[in-house]
């Protein structure tokens, strides 16, 4: 699947993960620190993924206040 990442902004192809939770584990990302979107839709950790999906992993942490 095609994965869009932020901080820094980049794109990558990842094969294998069948769920959002597996994808985050593969990328060593904490579920609490990100949201995962497919198009405009927020998807949860147990959501199934397909090889032709395009997903965005958006960090939720901001450093300034």
């Amino acid at each position, binding site marked *: 699947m095609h994965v869009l990442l932020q901080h820094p902004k980049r794109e990558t192809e990842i094969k294998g993960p069948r769920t959002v939770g597996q994808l985050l584990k593969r990328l060593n990302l904490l579920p*609490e*620190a990100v949201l995962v979107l497919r198009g405009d839709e927020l998807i949860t950790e147990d959501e199934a993924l397909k090889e032709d999906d395009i997903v965005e992993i*958006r960090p939720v*942490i*901001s450093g300034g206040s």
Partner: protein
Amino acid sequence: MPRHNTSVCAACLNDYVVEQVKRAIKDHTMFGRGDRILVAVSGGKDSLSLWDILMRLGYDTAGLHIQQGIGDYSEQSHQKTAAFAESRGAELILHSLKEKEGAGVLELADLTDRSPCSACGVMKRYNFNKIACDRGFDVLATGHNLDDEASRLLGNVLRWQEDYLAKQFPALQATHEKFVKKVKPLYRLAEREITAYAVVNKIDYVIEECPMSVGSKMFVNKEVLNRLETDAPGTKQAFYFGFLERQKQEDLSREDETIRSCTRCGQPTTAAVCSYCRILEKVKTAP
């Protein structure tokens, strides 16, 4: 939402977020229907969502955006904030550091040997408070969320900075005639929850982080807390809310005796000359 052991649809997420903000406002008597609220808006998810929620609840609000002069990042922050305000017909007050103070955050940091975050913090706190007072607002609202407060608490506890602990409350009364009351209506909401609110409601916010904040201690503390939260959902809430419960037993209404008026500008400070005036002095004497 692991800390509540549940998943919610978009409509229920909105109900949950709004209810948490209503509860925060009520529990800490933050403001009422007759009050004018100045919302500090950076263009990020928290402050724009806060402004959106307060308008949704029918409060009398205006936004205040400080243009920091940090290149494309500040330009994008200004554009997103202005577009948000225009789309809702809301009043937005702009304050450009380059125009009003004569230098942006990066130049101010260079002139004073401060870090950009330190210079930015002084400029924001001073201008938020002064503009709110000068324009007759009753209260200043900022978009600090549960993760901001829990990570700040962690940092303060690790160094036993007890003076800072006393000030880390969701509502701070005006303890000087030139202080405005300051409130944090998002303190009950996790950063992930408020980001989801922004996404679901199609709030167009700045996703990129401030380039000056790379490697900040705040990120490290949040990362640590998120690891704890992943292992034991509810940890951040228990940590910060537990602190607030203990704070309630203290006398929070006491006057801060160390606050006096700056001998140059008259604004509240703990020193003879406030940090803002000391920074501005460097701008005036710069070659």
